Structure formats: C-alpha cells, structure tokens
C-alpha cells in the first residue's frame, strides 16, 4: 500500500515539475521544386524524304562517256535508297517520265504515298522510269514547298533531286529552292553531267528555328507522411506547385520521381520549406541532388 502511495506521489511530483504543454503551433508548410533534365535521347524517327527524279526527255542525253543520264540517276537513286535507314519515309516522284507531260505538268507520284525506304516497290518504280515527256524540276520543288506547313514539323523534311538541269522549262530553280529553305527543308541536288547549277543555290541558308518544349512536362507529385513505422499520409500535392501543410513533427516527404525520392525531416511549427531537387536520371546514377531551402513568411500572409 505504501508503495502505491509512494509511486503516486512521485508521479504527482513529476507532473508538477514538467513544463506546461505548449499550445499547438501553426503547421509547417512544405513545397517542392524539381529541376529536371529533359530525358533526351536520340529520336528514333528518321527524316521524311521526297525523292524527285528528272525523267524528262532531256535525261536521254548521254554524258561524254556515252552513259544516259537517266541510267546514272536511276543507279544513284537506287543505291541511295538501299543505304537509307529502312524506316525512313520516302515519297518518290518523277518530273516527266510519261508521254504527253509538259512544262506545266505536276510531278508524278511513282508509288502511292510515302513508303519505307526498304520497300521494293520503290526500286521497281525507279527501274521502270523512261526519259519521255517534259516537266519542270523547279515547279516540282515548288509543289513540295507548298505542301510543307510554315512551322517546322517534328520530323524534318529533306528533298533529293536527280537531274541533268536540262529540262528547258525555264522556271527558277533558285526561287523554288528558296521556298523550300524558308520552310526549313534542305535540298540535295544531284547534277548529272556538266550543266552548271545556278550560283544562287549556294547562297541559300536554312532559317533559324526556335525550339522549346511545346508544353511543360507533367508536374511531379509529392506526399508528406508521418515518419516512423505507423506512417500516415498528411497530405499530397498532385499539381506539383501547391504546398502541403504538415504538423510540427518528424515527417517523411515522398517525391514521385523515377525512382522515388524519400527524405525525412522535422519541421518546426509555423515555418515554410522548399525541397529543391535536381533530377537527371538519363545522365546516370548519382545525378540527383536535393536540399531544403527555408522560405521567409510573407508579412501578414498565411501559408
């Protein structure tokens, strides 16, 4: 009995000696700021290409060695196709190549729609080309330019043309190439034979393009939990920018990165914190760093 009394007295004395409990303070506030990499890797897609072969009557001319220009164009184009990455999208057209075609005729699609470079139909269509009819290489290039949107597309377009530059239709090759250049399209002109190419072609430049992500990547979600074995989630921020209030005690912040970042810390009451994270997983292990930055409370403002 006396032991029970003594214990009660001891507990009473202990209780009286302890400081009175503090009134609960304002919660701490935690925000997140992630400085991420772009996760860039070489794009898998290859460029789109338009291949134009001059098959007008002028391509039946021979070079001094007696080789018909169209034969040379055919062999060069077939080798080029074989050497392209198989997935490259190729549109194959001819200028001329059909009886009755004239300078105002549009370039003829040799195979319907874009095909992958490895498609045998492309090789066959080139093999069947004959140097007949008339046509304008410059007009064919204009047609390509007009079909290209003004803003640069995600997959760039490139044009390759084989010609002896003897079509005689008179349209300006330079203007046509300039129209392509304005849309960011590069032209590879394979000249067969000695005909001079217009000097102005060498002065054309590709315009500067501005690049930036079309929209910001999805925000990073984070949650604040009670630290310890009996963890309970106090709050989450799905929008990335909104802070989370946390009771003034040991907490665990879980940032939903790949892999997740888990940081534990005690937050004093009525304080504001930003967890700054540097995350570049593509560049390899170790390229993630983090730090806590305290924020001053704005005068009169609530968290």
């Amino acid at each position, binding site marked *: 009995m006396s032991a029970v009394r003594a214990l009660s007295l001891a507990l009473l004395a202990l209780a009286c000696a302890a400081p009175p409990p503090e009134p609960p303070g304002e919660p701490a506030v935690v925000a997140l700021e992630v*400085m991420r*990499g*772009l*996760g*860039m*890797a*070489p*794009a*898998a897609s290859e*460029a789109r290409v338009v291949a134009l072969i001059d098959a007008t009557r002028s391509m039946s*001319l*021979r070079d001094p*060695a*007696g*080789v*018909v220009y169209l034969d040379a164009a055919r*062999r*060069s184009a077939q080798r080029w196709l074989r*050497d*392209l990455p198989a997935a490259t999208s190729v549109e194959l057209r001819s200028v001329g190549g059909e009886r009755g075609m004239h300078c105002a005729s549009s370039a003829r699609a040799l195979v319907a729609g874009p095909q992958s470079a490895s498609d045998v139909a492309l090789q066959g269509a080139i093999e069947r080309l004959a140097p007949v009819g008339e046509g304008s290489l410059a007009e064919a290039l204009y047609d390509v330019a007009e079909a290209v949107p*003004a*803003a*640069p597309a*995600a*997959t760039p377009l490139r044009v390759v043309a084989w010609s002896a530059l003897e079509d005689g239709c008179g349209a300006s090759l330079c203007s046509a*190439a300039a129209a*392509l250049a304005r849309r960011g399209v*590069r*032209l*590879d002109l*394979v*000249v*067969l*034979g*000695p*005909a*001079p190419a217009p000097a102005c*072609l060498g002065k*054309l*430049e*590709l*315009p*500067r*393009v*501005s*690049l*930036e*992500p*079309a929209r*910001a*990547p999805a925000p990073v979600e984070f949650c604040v939990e009670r630290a310890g074995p009996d963890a309970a989630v106090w709050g989450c921020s799905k929008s990335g920018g909104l802070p989370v209030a946390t009771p003034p005690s040991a907490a665990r912040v879980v940032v939903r990165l790949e*892999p997740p970042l888990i*940081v534990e810390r005690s937050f004093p009451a009525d304080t504001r914190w930003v967890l700054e994270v540097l995350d*570049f*997983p*593509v560049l390899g292990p170790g*390229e*993630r760093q*983090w*730090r806590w930055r305290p924020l001053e409370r704005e005068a009169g403002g609530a968290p």
Partner: protein
Amino acid sequence: MVEGQAPHRTRIRLRTACAVFGLLLAGSAAAQAPCAPWPEDPTPLPTVHDADPLRARWAALRLRELYAAARALEARDPARARALWQHASCLAPADADLARRARAVIPAVSLHRPPIERGGVMPEASDAWTSLEAPIAVAAPAPIRRATVRPSAPPADAAAMALVDETAANVRAARFEAALTSANRARADGASLAPRTRAALEVWAATAALALGREDEARASLGRALDAEPNLRLDSATSPKVRRAFDAVRAERRQ
C-alpha cells in the same frame, strides 16, 4: 548547399525520353529572346558559373543533355541542332565552341556532282547521304563515238594525247578546273595533235568553262575548235548548253 544525394537505380525509359524529346522537337518558330528559359528551366536561366552551386550543377547537367542531343541531330536536322547549340550556349556563355556552333550558317542546298563511270559494280558509300557524291557506275552500251575525239594520222605525241584524255576524264568527273588546267597543258604540248583531236580538246575545255560559268572562255575554246576543224559537227550526246554556245560561235563566224 547540397544536403544529400540519393542512390540511383536509374532505369532509362526510352519511351518517356523519346516523348519528351518529341515535345522538344515540336518546338515553335515563335520569336523569343535567345536566352529565354524554356518552360521547365529555372528562371532566370542559370549558367554553369552560377553563384548557387545547385543551379550551376543544373546548368552543367542540362548542358550535357543538350550537347548529346545536338550531336545526335546534327547530321539529320542541322537547323534544330543549331537551336539546341544556341540554348547550350546560353548555359555556358564563355564557351567559344558552343558560340560558334550556335552561329553556324547552314546551307539550304547541297550540290552533288558524282562522277559517272562505266561498270557494273557500284562503289560503296558510308551512308545514303554521302552516296549522293560517290561515283555512279553504269553498265552502259558501247560509248557513242565522238567523231572529233579520234585522232587522224599522223600519230600524235603520246604526252599530248594523254593530256587530251586527262581533260576528257576531268570533265566526266566534273573536275572542271582540273580540266581547264590539263587542256592548257595539252595546247602547249600539242603541236603534233591532229586537227580533229585539237577540236575535241577545245570542246572538252569549252564544256568545263561553261560548267564554271566562264562563257567567254568557252566561246574562245569553241572558236579554236572551229579553227582546227572548220567543218566540226558535235555529236548528239553533246550537252545542249555546249551546243548552243557552239552554234552561236559558228553563226558569228559566218557573218
């Protein structure tokens, strides 16, 4: 200060990476300040020399990413690669190499004049785009004889004949400057050349001069060809441009 570094078990998700890369490439052509931060970049845009070590570290890592992406794009899409170099240059303004790449002029047109050769085996090229410059082998029928190429008796000096052949080969291979040089040497050594061969030499030289845009030089060559062979007729394989120049020179002489 950096408080910690989390251990990494990085799994590079190619699909995610490509999607983000696609977003990047879908960029707009809208005008923007050259060093404006992109939407996900810290503001203001840090540099590798930023006083804040975390921001400086971010700039260094982003620079590595941009460098790799620009290198990967450069051959296929130099305009977009240049835009990446431009952004990289903003992160490291003191880097002269980046500044040079960011300012690079990109030609819109690449001219290729592959030599045309006889033969059934096409020479190999390292890739499709370099193949456009590589020699083209065509198993053509026997060459059309150019009446002017064959020398008539008396036999010509072998060295001068070799220079005529060299001139022809240079024109066929689109080495026009070299063709004019060898033609000059052939003229100097070619006192013993037959008139027909001298005429052929001048037609090759005129072809080269026209290809280089030197019309006066071409007309002079064609005049010498007609001096050597007043009844010279060009064969059907001659380029229309050479033929037009030749007709004009002959018409002038008849007036």
